[in-house]
């Protein structure tokens, strides 16, 4: 190479262009000028060679840097996870969507069936509890069929008859703070249904304990319906016609505690009373009762039976009984 460099300033200017030249970023005219200079200047040519060598060394060294083995797979996995249509690493296909939709429909169906069962169950519970409320309102409240001073126990036992006389002591013992004013067998006009009715007074109000024979009816079980369980007996509560009622059933009887003390208070009293009443009824009547809770049983015919009875007697609530208030005691 002919090396004749007589112009250091020109070299300086060319060297300032060398990086752009190396990156092929110069205009054609400038590139030509640089090339012309390099052909005649050994120093600048060596400088370019030096820079080129560093550049090539850098490319080579970086290219040898290996990519971690697991990186590709890690990226792949993260992309799959992030991909729409994937859930927990599984691809959601149309059939999966269909299965999910079917499951949803089945769930909705089951839920609506359950809701219907609960609704029917509540209707049945209300109908049964209304029996107790109607007798309490009709006989004790409207009829005022109790004395201001409690009748003697012997007289009450006589009214109850030998079948239920033994219950007087049970009711008296299980209702601390209440005095049994009256006990009798009564009925509501227009209905053959008989009620064993204990009228008590305590805590500033009147409270009735009422028993009536079950026919084919049965109170339904289920956690949405049962308010409390005591000694294997399911207890139910309701507030109707301004009265609070708690009800239960034994083998052959429905039992009710009715007052205006508040639902929880009445339920507590019924909880204490129910097992003892059940046992007393079993002893008195001589029929052993099962300890097991009554199974769910409220087919249409049973519900119809209850509703027929309450409609016939007008006992869907004390307010609907009618104005006569006459009792057949």
């Amino acid at each position: 190479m002919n090396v004749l460099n007589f112009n250091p300033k020109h070299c300086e200017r060319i060297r300032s262009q060398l990086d752009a030249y190396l990156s092929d970023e110069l205009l054609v005219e400038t590139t030509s000028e640089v090339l012309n200079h390099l052909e005649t200047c050994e120093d600048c040519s060596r400088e370019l060679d030096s820079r080129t060598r560093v550049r090539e060394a850098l490319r080579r060294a970086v290219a040898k840097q290996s990519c971690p083995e697991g990186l590709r797979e890690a990226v792949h996995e993260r992309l799959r996870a992030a991909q729409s249509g994937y859930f927990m690493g599984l691809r959601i296909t149309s059939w999966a969507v269909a299965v999910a939709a079917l499951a949803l429909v089945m769930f909705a169906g089951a839920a609506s069936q359950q809701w219907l069962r609960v609704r029917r169950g509540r209707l049945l519970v209300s109908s049964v509890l209304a029996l107790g409320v109607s007798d309490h309102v009709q006989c004790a409240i409207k009829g005022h069929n109790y004395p201001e001073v409690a009748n003697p126990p012997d007289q009450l036992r006589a009214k109850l008859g030998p079948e239920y006389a033994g219950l007087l002591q049970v009711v008296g013992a299980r209702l601390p703070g209440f005095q049994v004013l009256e006990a009798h067998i009564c009925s509501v006009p227009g209905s053959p249904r008989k009620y064993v009715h204990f009228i008590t007074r305590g805590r500033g109000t009147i409270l009735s304990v009422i028993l009536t024979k079950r026919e084919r009816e049965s109170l339904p079980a289920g956690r949405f319906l049962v308010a409390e369980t005591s000694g294997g007996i399911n207890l139910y509560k309701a507030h109707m016609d301004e009265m609070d009622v708690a009800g239960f059933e034994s083998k052959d009887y429905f039992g009710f505690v009715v007052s205006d003390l508040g639902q929880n208070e009445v339920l507590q009293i019924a909880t204490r009373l129910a097992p003892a009443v059940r046992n007393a009824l079993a002893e008195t009547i001589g029929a052993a009762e099962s300890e097991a809770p009554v199974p769910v049983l409220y087919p249409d015919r049973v519900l119809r039976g209850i509703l027929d009875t309450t409609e016939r007697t007008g006992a869907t609530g004390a307010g609907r009984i009618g104005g006569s208030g006459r009792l057949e005691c």
Partner: protein
Amino acid sequence: MFYRPKIRVEDFEAAAMPHLADLYRSASLLLRDASQAEDLVQEVYLEAWKSFHRFEPGTNCRAWLFKILFHRLHHLRRRLIKASKVEGFASPTDQDNIVAEPPVPQEIRDDDILLALEKVPVEFREVVLMADVEDFSYKEIANTLKIPLGTVMSRVSRGRKLLRQELADLARDYGIRSEDEDARKGGSA
């Protein structure tokens, strides 16, 4: 008009995965931490996948990925600088003090040049890597780093010079004479 065609991850991978190694190497050399680089690259691919619907087929997928890489890298560096864990940008005035052209060893070992590169401030290191290793044009670099073209030119130039300086320093430390020194010795003899 609201319909957006479904994009398959396979299509994205076909376009983007070939550049994985390049992205990792750049991330690794800029962060100087292999583990952080791996995480960063994964994040880049996730972000790229999420915005792949905006990517125009036929345009430069590699440049697009690098743009995301540098965007995330700068974000990461800003966070780390706040925590005073990494170097900040070198002061340009420091670089102005480099006047003499440093002599470069004739034989450049891979380890040496990578070690020298590590010592180059990151703002220069990134443009040198993009220009000399990844072969991006100055315009692409300016677009990716969102800096003026003139700044790219000056940083490339200064970055390369710093790299040569570091290499020369290493060579001096090793007692290796550069070819220039040899030439000078030969000339004076």
